[in-house]
């Protein structure tokens, strides 16, 4: 078991006052709160900080921890010396707010557990018959899945209490129907696929947040889809009829003469389908033909002679 340096986790000195510890906690809690933070390991850090605060904010636990702490460094192998907590009175199981179920082995060894079993009951469920927790996960889909609907297989890890009462990580595979018309950030509720109930309580629900895999050329905003479409300079200048890809297959697109780069063409109703389908926006880009042959260079020179043009006129130079 690794020793955890709670002071280091909280970024405070060993002699920090209770007020300083509270301030450090508030700051880190905001930074790593999983609902707010975009840090990749936010959830882990948030739990760590919560655990550290659970110990340091309680003068009794802090004093007991301090007594150990002087001889260990973070990450070092640690076993609590026998009788380490003698002379300290913990108000057994009285964890003051945090959900201790995610705390480390290190914490459990020192301060025990059992809190996580009572928490369900204390939050208003009937004793020993509590509905399981709702669980959350993300599911990655392709843009095409939102256009046509799809069946997706996904593997989820979850923690279950094993026969010995210790949490075990288990994997399960789900086959999920993705309905047509789903959008980024929407949630799919799969009834009773969440955490197992306690006693006769039924299982919680599983909430899947829809996330699109990045697509090489489409971008999605809500129900609208954007495509950057490159044009040759002459197509943009003279107008043209060209082929453009869409998620439902290529279409013929008429480019009006004199189209500048950045011009948006709207293909109504070609976005993500639904009662009110989104639109597909084609954003025109102008590609530069390479001047890598003598004839191409010659053509550019003639173009320059034929068309007087200062692209920086608006910059005053």
């Amino acid at each position: 078991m690794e020793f955890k340096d709670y002071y280091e986790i909280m970024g405070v000195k060993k002699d920090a006052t209770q007020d300083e510890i509270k301030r450090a906690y508030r700051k880190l809690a905001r930074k790593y709160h999983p609902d707010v933070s975009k840090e990749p390991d936010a959830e882990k850090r948030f739990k760590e900080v919560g655990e550290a605060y659970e110990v340091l904010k309680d003068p009794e636990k802090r004093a007991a921890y301090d007594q150990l702490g002087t001889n260990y460094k973070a990450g070092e192998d640690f076993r609590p010396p026998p009788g380490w907590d003698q002379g300290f009175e913990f108000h057994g199981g009285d964890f003051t707010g945090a959900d201790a179920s995610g705390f480390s082995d290190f914490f459990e060894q020192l301060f025990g557990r059992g809190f996580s079993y009572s928490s369900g009951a204390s939050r208003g469920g009937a004793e020993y018959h509590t509905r399981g927790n709702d669980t959350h996960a993300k599911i990655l889909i392709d843009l095409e899945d939102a256009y046509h609907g799809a069946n997706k297989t996904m593997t989820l890890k979850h923690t279950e209490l094993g026969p010995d009462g210790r949490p075990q990580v288990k994997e399960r595979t789900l086959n999920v129907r993705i309905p047509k018309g789903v959008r980024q950030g929407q949630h799919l509720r799969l009834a009773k696929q969440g955490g197992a109930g306690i006693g006769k309580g039924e299982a919680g629900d599983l909430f899947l947040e829809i996330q699109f895999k990045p697509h090489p050329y489409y971008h999605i905003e809500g129900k609208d889809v954007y495509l950057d479409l490159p044009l040759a300079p002459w197509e943009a200048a003279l107008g043209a009829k060209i082929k453009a890809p869409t998620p439902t297959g290529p279409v013929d697109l008429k480019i009006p003469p004199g189209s500048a780069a950045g011009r948006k063409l709207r293909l109504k109703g070609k976005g993500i389908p639904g009662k009110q389908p989104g639109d597909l926006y084609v954003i025109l880009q102008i590609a530069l033909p390479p001047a890598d042959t003598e004839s191409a260079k010659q053509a550019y020179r003639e173009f320059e002679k034929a068309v007087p043009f200062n692209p920086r006129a608006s910059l005053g130079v």
Partner: protein
Amino acid sequence: MTKQMMSLLSGDVLEDNMEITLAELCRICRLPAERVFELVEEGIAEPLGQDPQYWRFQGISVLRVRCALRLEHDLGINTAGAALVLDLLDEIETMRTRLNRFENLG
């Protein structure tokens, strides 16, 4: 893997075609109705309909309410603060999506 695990699961899209009553929202979020009234007052959940007896909430309200409760509990903020955080998170999400599009240009 057993066969049962692989049977096809279908769900409701919370944002689209799922509506719940006040009683259901209270049950799912394990909240008394008075707390839900507070959350509605701050715009965290936005019901359709006049009389609370006939209120209908979008499924997404469940997630917004839960997120607000977590924020209140973990960060020590009040309901108005949680409502502000939720609104700002929505705004950030919209901007991130747009930013992604422009960063990937060219």
